[in-house]
């Protein structure tokens, strides 16, 4: 075995260890009440065909395959809901981590040393936490992040193959009909073509472009789906959260200011962890003179990563100008492209989880920038600033990785607590369990949450001081 291959295997080995840890904490969660139980009730009675047909008459969202996936897994599970839905979540995380390592292409010892940092940036991000903390009961945002990253990995291959083209087209169609941000797959393919990446053929890009045009036309002109209105949901704005009625009062008739705010917020949240969910928490805490450790570490670690990436772009400006790209340049360029498109697609409302794909590419860009900084240390004016940034990155993102694990452990208790009072929740949602099947499902999931899979041990109050914050 060559030395390069050995180092690559070590990198995958580390990814496997991290996946196993995340998988263990993920299995501590259960099928949740909010966003999951209601969805399972909705897919219980209708056939797959009825479910798909109903989705084409919805307003604001066109997500037929999201419901089809839930229905298929629900039917296939044969009543083993915990095993199937939690198992799928673990498989999703394994895929995401594995694809991230593949995208990084670590080959030398120095590369492998930076893989843990990159995976900490991936898993410690506030855009990642909701992809593992929540499920509906399949986390569709995580599905999209996996598909977008898989497309980038395929695009980075030396040449295209017919089967990879087919795979990318299938992923694109499937992802777009699951969640709107599936469009990012086309964005990655188009970006890859601009960056002269060879892994996806021009023919496949043409097919996807036609499919995208068709999707837009059908969505707007045939099904008249539209976009989410201001009344759809509460949204972060400035230092607080505006309820739909407040959003309407402030922006009705001129929503462009709100949309622009959302796009800028989405951009900034990936680069600086500020704002989160549209709320400028760090600045607000600064004005109070009391910054929570979690907020400070989040902003500092993200800013350190952004500084490193900007420095990389500056040092490689000649290559960018002459389009003489290496793999690392393409990774960073794809990050910029995905960030811009992801932020633009978030215009109706801003949520951390929506920026998940950009967060994944940020982890890869930080890896490339860190590797380049260390490789070119001898040419730098001073090693001290780079060493300082590496310290902030390493310890900051490790702290955030702990935060994600803490978050998963606390969520395990919170989700189960919802099952204790599920009947009150049904009342609040004005949901009536119709028929024996619905009651059986409630009893089954409640038994799973409270008796079959007891809550994992909870962190003591000493941990709360550092990590217990509204994410």
């Amino acid at each position, binding site marked *: 075995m060559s030395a390069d291959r050995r180092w690559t295997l070590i990198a995958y080995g580390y990814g496997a260890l991290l996946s196993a840890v995340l998988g263990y904490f993920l299995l501590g969660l259960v099928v949740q009440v909010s966003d999951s139980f209601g969805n399972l009730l909705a897919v219980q009675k209708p056939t797959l065909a009825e479910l798909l047909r109903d989705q084409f008459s919805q307003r604001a969202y066109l997500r037929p395959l999201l419901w089809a996936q839930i229905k298929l897994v629900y039917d296939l599970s044969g009543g083993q809901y915990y095993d199937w839905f939690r198992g799928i979540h673990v498989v999703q995380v394994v895929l995401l981590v594995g694809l991230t390592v593949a995208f990084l292409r670590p080959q030398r010892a120095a590369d492998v040393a930076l893989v843990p940092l990159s995976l900490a940036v991936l898993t410690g991000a506030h855009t990642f936490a909701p992809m593992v903390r929540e499920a509906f009961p399949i986390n569709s945002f995580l599905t999209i992040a996996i598909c977008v990253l898989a497309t980038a990995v395929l695009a980075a291959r030396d040449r295209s193959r017919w089967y990879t083209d087919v795979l990318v087209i299938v992923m694109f169609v499937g992802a777009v009909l699951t969640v709107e941000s599936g469009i990012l797959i086309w964005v990655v393919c188009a970006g890859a073509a601009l960056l002269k990446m060879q892994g996806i053929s021009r023919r496949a890009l043409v097919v996807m472009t036609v499919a995208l045009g068709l999707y837009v036309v059908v969505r707007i002109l045939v099904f008249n789906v539209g976009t989410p209105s201001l009344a759809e949901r509460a949204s972060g704005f400035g230092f607080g959260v505006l309820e739909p009625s407040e959003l309407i009062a402030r922006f009705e008739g001129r929503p462009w200011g709100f949309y622009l705010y959302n796009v800028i917020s989405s951009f900034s949240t990936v680069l600086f962890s500020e704002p989160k969910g549209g709320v400028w928490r760090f600045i607000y805490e600064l004005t109070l003179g009391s910054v929570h450790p979690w907020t400070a570490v989040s902003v500092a670690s993200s800013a350190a990563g952004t500084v490193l990436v900007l420095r990389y772009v500056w040092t490689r400006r000649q290559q960018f100008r002459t389009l003489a790209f290496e793999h690392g340049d393409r990774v960073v360029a794809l990050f910029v492209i995905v960030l811009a498109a992801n932020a633009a697609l978030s215009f109706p409302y801003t949520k951390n989880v929506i920026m998940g794909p950009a967060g994944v590419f940020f982890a890869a860009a930080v890896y490339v920038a860190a590797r380049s900084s260390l490789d070119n*240390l001898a040419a730098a004016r001073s090693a001290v600033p780079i060493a300082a940034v590496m310290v902030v990155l390493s310890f900051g993102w490790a702290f955030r990785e702990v935060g994600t694990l803490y978050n998963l452990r606390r969520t395990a208790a919170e989700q189960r607590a919802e099952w*204790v*009072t599920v009947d009150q929740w049904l009342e609040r949602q004005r949901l009536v369990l119709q028929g024996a099947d619905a009651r059986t499902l409630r009893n089954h999931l409640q038994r799973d949450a409270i008796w079959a899979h007891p809550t994992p041990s909870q962190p003591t109050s000493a941990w709360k001081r550092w990590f217990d914050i509204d994410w």
Partner: protein
Amino acid sequence: MVRHRLVTPLCVLAALAPVAVTVGAALVAAAEIGGAHPLTVGPPRNVAEAIAVGDAATAARLADGGASVTEIVFVRAGLLAPQPILASPLEVAVMLDQAPTVDFLLARGAVRNEHLACLAADVGARAARTRVGEPVQCRKGEALRDVLERP
């Protein structure tokens, strides 16, 4: 040349903290699978402890298994406060302002009284106050002190 020699230590530095976290978490997971509970105090020992760590499901399971929902019990240090305390499940739920848990305990036979209303006022538990009622006559801070200094 000196700077070049810094590359390896800086690579190690970059890897150090994330690897330590992942390996540490893997060891915690392995220990938990083996029945130990490092970094936590382990499973709650009674209904009050379960509520103190925000684990209403375990509180419900323990109550279903016959554990008392009214008895004053020992809550270990680090769960509700830095020091160990003696409290009833309802007192803990009020102190943490867990209104759904208060509902659950009341439905299971716990009894609301003036002491709980005063306790809710002392800790500023707005949601719990709607469940245990407004206090009629209480001295500010006394109900909380009674719980924290219970012999």
